[in-house]
């Protein structure tokens, strides 16, 4: 069983190189981004998330919507465990994996094969697990002999195919995504869609940030609308999308 519980959780990110003097007399509430504040020692902080309380349980397919800087990415980082909340509490149960940056850790000078091991290890797979999946990853990527070439020789499409093929091997209980992954030419896209669908199907909780109404209507059964780091609306896709995507 997987579950996520936010209890009045908030995130304030300190900014050490901002010129606080130039900000002091300015209006703090701005159109995009979190709220800018000063902490007790006079540093500028961005209040990226504020007073969030919600619960997610098995079967939840949550869409995150909101304008740029509304806190979607920060929320995903809290969910992945990268950011510990600076206020309140976050209780996570279940193994989390994120498909936010599938190219992270890929070394351009290393071969595709070496990168499978590198990226796989970053995703938390053991060497044995990678070895077991190696053939299917290579087959799926359709890179053929290029798998033994340095990644810098790849086209950007090939690069993404490799990253996609490795990253979708994992089967986490909680999956985090920033927009849908769609890669490759027509033929590959079809295959990738099926792989993604299977991955999403096997996870217990999915949280995906997206600006696409169609995507959210298609895969989500719940939507959180963030604005200035707070929840503006929490409800069914019909309800929230109706209000957000006017």
């Amino acid at each position: 069983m997987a579950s996520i519980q936010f209890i009045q959780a908030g995130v304030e990110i300190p900014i050490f190189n901002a010129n606080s003097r130039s900000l002091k007399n300015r209006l703090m509430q701005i159109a995009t981004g979190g709220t800018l504040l000063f902490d007790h020692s006079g540093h500028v902080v961005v209040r990226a998330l504020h007073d969030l309380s919600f619960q997610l349980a098995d079967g939840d397919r949550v869409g995150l919507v909101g304008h740029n800087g509304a806190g979607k990415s920060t929320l995903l980082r809290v969910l992945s465990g990268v950011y510990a909340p600076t206020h309140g509490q976050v209780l996570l149960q279940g193994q989390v994996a994120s498909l936010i940056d599938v190219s992270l850790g890929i070394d351009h000078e290393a071969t595709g094969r070496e990168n499978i091991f590198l990226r796989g290890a970053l995703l938390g797979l053991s060497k044995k697990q990678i070895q077991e999946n190696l053939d299917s990853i290579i087959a799926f990527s359709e890179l053929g002999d290029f798998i033994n070439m340095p990644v810098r020789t790849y086209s950007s499409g090939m690069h993404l195919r490799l990253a996609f093929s490795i990253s979708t091997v994992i089967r986490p209980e909680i999956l985090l995504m920033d927009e849908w992954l769609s890669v490759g030419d027509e033929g590959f896209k079809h295959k990738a869609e099926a792989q993604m669908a299977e991955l999403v199907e096997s996870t217990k909780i999915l949280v995906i940030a997206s600006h696409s109404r169609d995507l959210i209507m298609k895969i989500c059964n719940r939507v959180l609308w963030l604005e200035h780091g707070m929840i503006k609306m929490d409800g069914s896709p019909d309800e929230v999308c109706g209000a957000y995507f006017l």
Partner: protein
Amino acid sequence: MHYSSLVLLLAWQDIRGRYRRSAIGPFWLTISMGVMIASIGFVFGQIFSTPMDEYLPFLASGIILWAFITGTINEGCTGFIDAEGIIKQLPIPLFVHILRVLWRNVLILAHNILMLPLVLLVMGKGLSFVALWAIPGLLLVVLCLSWVALLFATLCARYRDLPQIIASVLQVSFYLTPIIWMPSMLPDRVGVVFLGLNPFYHLLELIRSPLLGQVPSLTSWVVVAAIALFGWLFTLFVFSRLHKRVAYWL
């Protein structure tokens, strides 16, 4: 436990990345170390007019170990800063990035140390069984360096001027520590300060003196063990308070 393969992979990748497409790869480390030892050895051996068969092995082992110690500390400072991309995306334990720095520098040391048998051979000296003392010595030194790297990585993530400050301090320490010059060249009174109170001297002695055929003094063992123990206690105290902040500082 499965993070161990990640550490080995990342560290090895770092080394390979530096020397990719070069024909002899990381053995450039060995060669440039050899050139440095030969040139400093020639110049300062003349200046100090010490017998080469005594001076050169001392210099070679000292410089190789110094490169290891300072390399680990300097790269430790940027251990978290360099791993920003990973730290802000994946919840991998932060100590993995420190182990990556440690292991990378151990690998570099393994390449550099190849110069030492060569120097000993040329100078007509051998290694005795006493050299085996260098192994526990190295382990204890690594234990010290690991807390230093963890502490500095954490503080440097927050205070970005620190890496430069630490680099300058290490630069100065190179001249204050007997590496180019030998302890026997010091007048007695000065020796107490430059040797006894210099932690780098004790760190070096633990590995260098067995390589040169002498068992390290009990004082050096005690000093380094104390540095390891109290350093780790202090670092754990600081790190347990700050580790959740590191991702926000990057």
